[in-house]
Structure formats: structure tokens, C-alpha cells
């Protein structure tokens, strides 16, 4: 399975993503932001980092990179697209996912482990988890505070499009478990068609117990299973 890993000027998790794809048996393919064309790709991944120095707003400039036109077309034709951290911010700016990510409530860049609860397992990105499973993985961002108007938020909740929620040690979505002030403790969401996913925490940095956690593996193994049609 060919999985495009995009790189923007300022991306810094692209190699982690490349490694993650290889680890689950996929064939990662580099795509620079100025490249065109995603023909033959089975999925597209947008990495974390600070594309264009986060100038103006995180993701606002990357959203107009040449490759993004192809990503939008790929997503609209039903191809799976995953944005992690800055990738999530870019997908929101591009209108492929609803809402926006603003400055953390703490005003700080937060680099720490967080706990996530898996809300849905009937998606292409979470099928290898259990509903309600608690995952530990790192987050590293200053703009991860998810915002959407009440109507958008209600449709995300009603349509079961919240995939991951920040939780406390007891597994509850409390303010204590919320690292950045995101509405409804939202850490990761799906688009209406279920083929575009964005999340702020870093599953690609939680792929091996040696590195503290392998709880992120499921995101990539679920994607591979979905591409292979085995779930």
C-alpha cells in the first residue's frame, strides 16, 4: 500500500510518519509541498511541525501549497487522509475538517504525554482499538485548543465524529484531563464522509514500548487494515 507522506517547509514529524508507515507494512512515498500529483497513492498523511513558521495562523499558509489542491481532490474522491498536529491544523484551514485550533488555554507550548479515550472503533483509523480504550501518547503543540461553533460541535457529537477525547487518569473527559482547553475535550475528529481524520496528539511518536508507548500503533495498523479491506 502506497502512503504519501507530505513535507512542508517546517515539518518535523515527517520522518516519524515515514517510519510508522513502514512499521505497519506500508510503502511510504515522500511528497514535497511543491510536488503535484497523488496518483497511485492509497492514503495521504500530513505531518506535525511548524509549516511556514506557523505565520499568520498555524496551517494557514501550508493550506495554499500546490500539493494541497491534490490532497483536497484526493479527499473528495474518498481517499483516506490523516493530519496529525500541524497536519490537523492544515486540514482545518483547508476546510477538509470543521472548526479551528487556537492557542492553548495555558498560553504555553505543551510537550507532555496525554491520555486519550477511543470513542469509536468503526472508522478506518481506529478499528484496531477497543471502544473506550485509554491510550497514552505524546502531544507537543501551542495551538491545539479545538474550537467550533455550537452547531458544528453538536453535529460532530450527534454523528459520532469525535474519535479521540482527552481524559483524566480515571478515563473521564474532565477539565483536569484536558491539556489545552479544547471544547468537549476533543483530540481527534472525522469528516462527514469518514475518510479524513485529524488529531493533535502524536501516534507516530508512540510506536514502540522502548519509546514509552506503542499505543499509537493502532492508528496506522487500522489504516492498513482498512486499505487491505480486512475489516
Amino acid at each position, binding site marked *: 500500500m502506497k502512503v504519501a507522506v507530505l513535507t512542508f517547509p517546517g515539518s518535523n514529524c515527517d520522518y516519524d510518519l515515514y517510519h510508522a508507515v513502514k512499521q505497519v507494512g506500508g510503502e511510504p512515498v515522500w511528497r514535497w509541498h511543491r510536488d503535484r500529483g497523488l496518483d497511485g497513492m492509497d492514503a495521504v498523511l500530513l505531518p506535525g511541525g511548524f509549516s511556514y513558521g506557523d505565520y*499568520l*495562523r498555524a496551517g*494557514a*499558509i501550508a493550506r*495554499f501549497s500546490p500539493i494541497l489542491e491534490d490532497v483536497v481532490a484526493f479527499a473528495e474522491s474518498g481517499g483516506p487522509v490523516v493530519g496529525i498536529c500541524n497536519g490537523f491544523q492544515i486540514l*482545518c*484551514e483547508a476546510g477538509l475538517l470543521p*472548526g*479551528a485550533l*487556537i*492557542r*492553548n*488555554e*495555558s*498560553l504555553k507550548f505543551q510537550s507532555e504525554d496525554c491520555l486519550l479515550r477511543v470513542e469509536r472503533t468503526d472508522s478506518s483509523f481506529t478499528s484496531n482499538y477497543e471502544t473506550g480504550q485509554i491510550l497514552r501518547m505524546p502531544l507537543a503543540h501551542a495551538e491545539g*485548543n479545538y*474550537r*467550533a*461553533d455550537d452547531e458544528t460541535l453538536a453535529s460532530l457529537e450527534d454523528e459520532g465524529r469525535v474519535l479521540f477525547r482527552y481524559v483524566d487518569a480515571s478515563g473521564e473527559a474532565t477539565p483536569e484531563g484536558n491539556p489545552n*482547553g479544547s471544547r468537549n475535550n476533543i483530540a481527534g475528529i472525522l469528516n462527514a464522509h469518514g475518510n479524513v481524520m485529524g488529531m493533535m496528539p502524536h501516534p507516530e511518536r508512540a510506536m514502540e514500548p522502548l519509546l514509552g508507548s506503542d499505543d499509537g500503533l493502532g492508528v496506522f495498523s487500522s489504516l492498513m487494515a482498512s486499505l487491505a479491506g480486512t475489516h
Partner: protein
Amino acid sequence: MSRFRIEIRVTPRPGILDPQGKAIHHSLHNLGWTAVDDVRVGKAIHVELDAGGADEARSAAEEMCKKLLANPVTEDFEVYQVEEA
């Protein structure tokens, strides 16, 4: 064609949490300005461009705001000033 200087103001929408404004508010209180009731932080963007007239310059600026300079989910924008350079 004339050269125009445009000032665009982008501000957090009402009801959107503004953590920077909150921090500055807190700091002003610490400095003794206890009468300060609210602080919101936005940005001013200065654009210079050539256009056939002020109306054309203004509508170009509005398009820039809609497409790139402001995010409608969290921000409002205003083309605050258009003046011939």
C-alpha cells in the same frame, strides 16, 4: 493605477476564548489598572497595493481577508483604512 496603503484588523470573534487577552488583562491588574474590565488581542496587517481606485483596493483587501488573512471560525476582520500612498 495608484498606490494604496491599507490597514486590516483581524480580531478574535466575540465569545471565542482569547488567552492572550486574558493574560494581558491579568498583568494589567497586577500593575494596578484594576479598572480594566476586558482585553482582546488582534492583529493589524498593513498591505500596500496598486489599484484603479479606493473601492477596488478595498474589495481586493476584503477578498484577501476571506481567503487567507482571517479564519472565519475564530476571527472577524475589518478593512479599517484605505488611503492613497
